[in-house]
């Protein structure tokens, strides 16, 4: 099935399929494809399979101490539900599982650049599945860089994989199911949150009611159960807050916000923030794959066909004959573990059909995808972005790495830097180690603020490999691919081939 253009020599394949990410979507696809006799390589940043949702599940289940049993009980049945999937993944001898491996480049032709420790190289497959998941929505507010401000996902990761629980005054601020789930998990571990302050309002919940579907009732009932538990426990809750700020010099000492017209200040040792989750677009953007704006979730997501096939934005003369990349799970569209499993299976079926194996996408898989996503319109309406709803004031840091404030960016945008890459080049916004993961959306919105939302999709920084730091020694020892085979896509992919306007850069 190897297809190459005239310009490039044929490149040997390392596997039929490379899967990036070992959460529910990646594991499901890997199992399905391996069962159909495909060779599968799975690359994952974590030490064990499970993704963030089933993080460290194998280890937590194997420990019999009463503390660990209490932890398992607190994390709940949705966490333990991943055990069978992980067992099946581990049992498959056709899956070449490579943990603790980061991916720093993906190309639309099926090439993947990887790093493990100080070893790095390229792998190639007929098809690449991106199942790298989601991240929490960036929430620039005054003080969000202070030690002691952490995301809800971070605290949950510490529960699952760090054997750590918070102490002292814990305040949770933001919106979304994860915030409430974490609060109940903490309470079950004997950590009673001092305050849960939500940006969503009662009216959001009312508006969401019309999106309720029979299939989406269960998650809603679960959520109401969490709220009831927290109420019974006497946890103080506030909703409809705005204008949050974290206060402190060397660490967070207090949080303040406006609720019902009054300014509230609460001392805290740990400030947990959450504003919903969004697809991680670092790899698709770095691969030059098409993105689209998802208004309902207020986030970018990769543009794909329903069965996950991505499309390249490279100019026609640089496009591979076929785009080898498919995207599944939360990396494609936020839906949670069950939706990721359903779509991972559907993606595998689509790939098998392409390879002339299997009988195509089953109606059962299609129904599972539809069913598991049917609660999303309700959740999107009930928990709209709150902490990030309004753009930060001039003194607030936007780019955590380079410590650039919204005011500094606004000033440059006013003087003409209205193109994302020009703004990046001028200010270094997005040039730090995180490569724009936390500032890109805010920078794009600041440009829109000044120039109006003239495009259907907010502009992005042009992604460039390596999208994660690659030690020089690893780069020097790069293995796995003849460099001449990649020349076409790496050296000639320059702005002059693109529609990108360089005229937006003011003259010196």
């Amino acid at each position, binding site marked *: 099935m190897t297809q190459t253009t005239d310009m490039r020599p044929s490149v040997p394949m390392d596997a039929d399929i490379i899967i990036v990410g070992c959460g529910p979507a990646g594991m499901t696809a890997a199992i399905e494809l391996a069962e159909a006799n495909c060779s599968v390589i799975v690359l994952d*940043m*974590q*030490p064990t399979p499970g993704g*963030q949702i089933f993080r460290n599940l194998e*280890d937590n289940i194997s*420990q019999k*101490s009463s*503390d*660990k049993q*209490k*932890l398992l009980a607190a994390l709940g049945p949705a966490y333990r539900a991943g055990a069978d999937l992980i067992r099946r993944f581990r049992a498959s001898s056709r899956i070449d599982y490579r943990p*603790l491996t*980061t991916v720093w480049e993906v190309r639309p032709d099926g090439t993947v650049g990887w790093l493990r420790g*100080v070893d790095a190289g390229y792998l190639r497959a007929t098809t690449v599945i991106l199942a790298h998941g989601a*991240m*929490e929505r960036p929430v620039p507010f005054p003080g969000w*860089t202070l*030690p*002691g*401000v*952490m*995301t809800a*996902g*971070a*605290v949950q*990761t*510490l*529960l699952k*994989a*760090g*054997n*750590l*629980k*918070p*102490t*002292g005054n814990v305040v949770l601020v933001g919106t979304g199911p994860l915030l409430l789930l974490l609060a109940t998990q903490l309470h079950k*571990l004997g950590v009673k949150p001092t305050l849960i302050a939500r940006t969503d309002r009662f009216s959001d919940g009312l508006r969401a009611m019309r999106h309720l579907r029979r299939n989406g009732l269960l998650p809603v009932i679960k959520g109401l159960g969490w709220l009831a538990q927290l109420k019974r426990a006497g946890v103080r809750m506030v909703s409809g807050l705005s204008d949050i700020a974290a206060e402190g010099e*060397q*660490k967070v000492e207090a949080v303040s916000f406006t609720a019902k017209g009054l300014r509230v200040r609460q001392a805290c*040792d*740990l400030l947990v923030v959450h504003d919903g989750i969004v697809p*991680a677009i670092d790899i698709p953007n770095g691969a030059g794959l098409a993105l689209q704006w998802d208004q309902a979730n207020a986030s970018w997501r990769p543009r794909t066909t329903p069965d996950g096939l991505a499309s390249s934005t490279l100019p026609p003369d640089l496009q591979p004959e076929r785009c080898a990349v498919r995207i599944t799970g939360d990396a494609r569209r936020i839906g949670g573990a069950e939706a990721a499993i359903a779509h991972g299976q559907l993606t595998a079926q689509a790939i098998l059909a392409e390879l002339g194996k299997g009988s195509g996408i089953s109606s059962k898989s299609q129904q599972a995808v539809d069913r598991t996503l049917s609660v999303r319109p309700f959740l999107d309406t009930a928990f709209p972005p709150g902490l990030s709803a309004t753009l930060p004031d001039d003194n607030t840091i936007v780019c*955590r*790495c*380079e*410590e650039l404030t919204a005011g500094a960016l606004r000033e440059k945008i006013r003087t003409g830097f209205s193109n994302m890459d020009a703004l990046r080049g001028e200010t270094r916004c997005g040039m*730090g*180690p*995180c490569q724009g*993961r*936390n500032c890109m959306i805010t920078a794009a919105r600041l440009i829109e603020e000044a120039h109006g939302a003239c495009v259907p999709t907010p502009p992005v920084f042009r992604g460039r490999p390596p999208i994660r*730091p690659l*030690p020089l020694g690893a780069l020097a020892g790069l293995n796995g691919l003849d460099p001449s085979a990649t020349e076409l896509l790496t050296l000639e992919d320059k702005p002059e081939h693109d529609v990108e306007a360089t005229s937006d850069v003011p003259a010196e």
Partner: protein
Amino acid sequence: MFSPIAPLTHSITVYLDDQPITASKGESVAACLLRAGVAFNRLTPVSGAPRLPYCMIGQCFDCLVEIDGIGNQQACLTIVRDRMRVRRQNGAAVALEHSAQ
């Protein structure tokens, strides 16, 4: 800010800025530093502000530390090893000190 859920098992030793601290086999360097209660794992290169891990899933890059002589390693994605040498990163201040020597 954090305390262990269960007593530490499989303890190993890592060195934080040359001082031995106890780590638990299998945990991330970031979790180890948070349990040790450090005030920061790095000072930013621009303003020297203290930072601690923020996202714990490899997206924010605030948990960067030097590990076994290699700088800018993501502590949340690195698993502790016995006798690993971890150094907090002290931003531009240290880099400037080095270049002045």
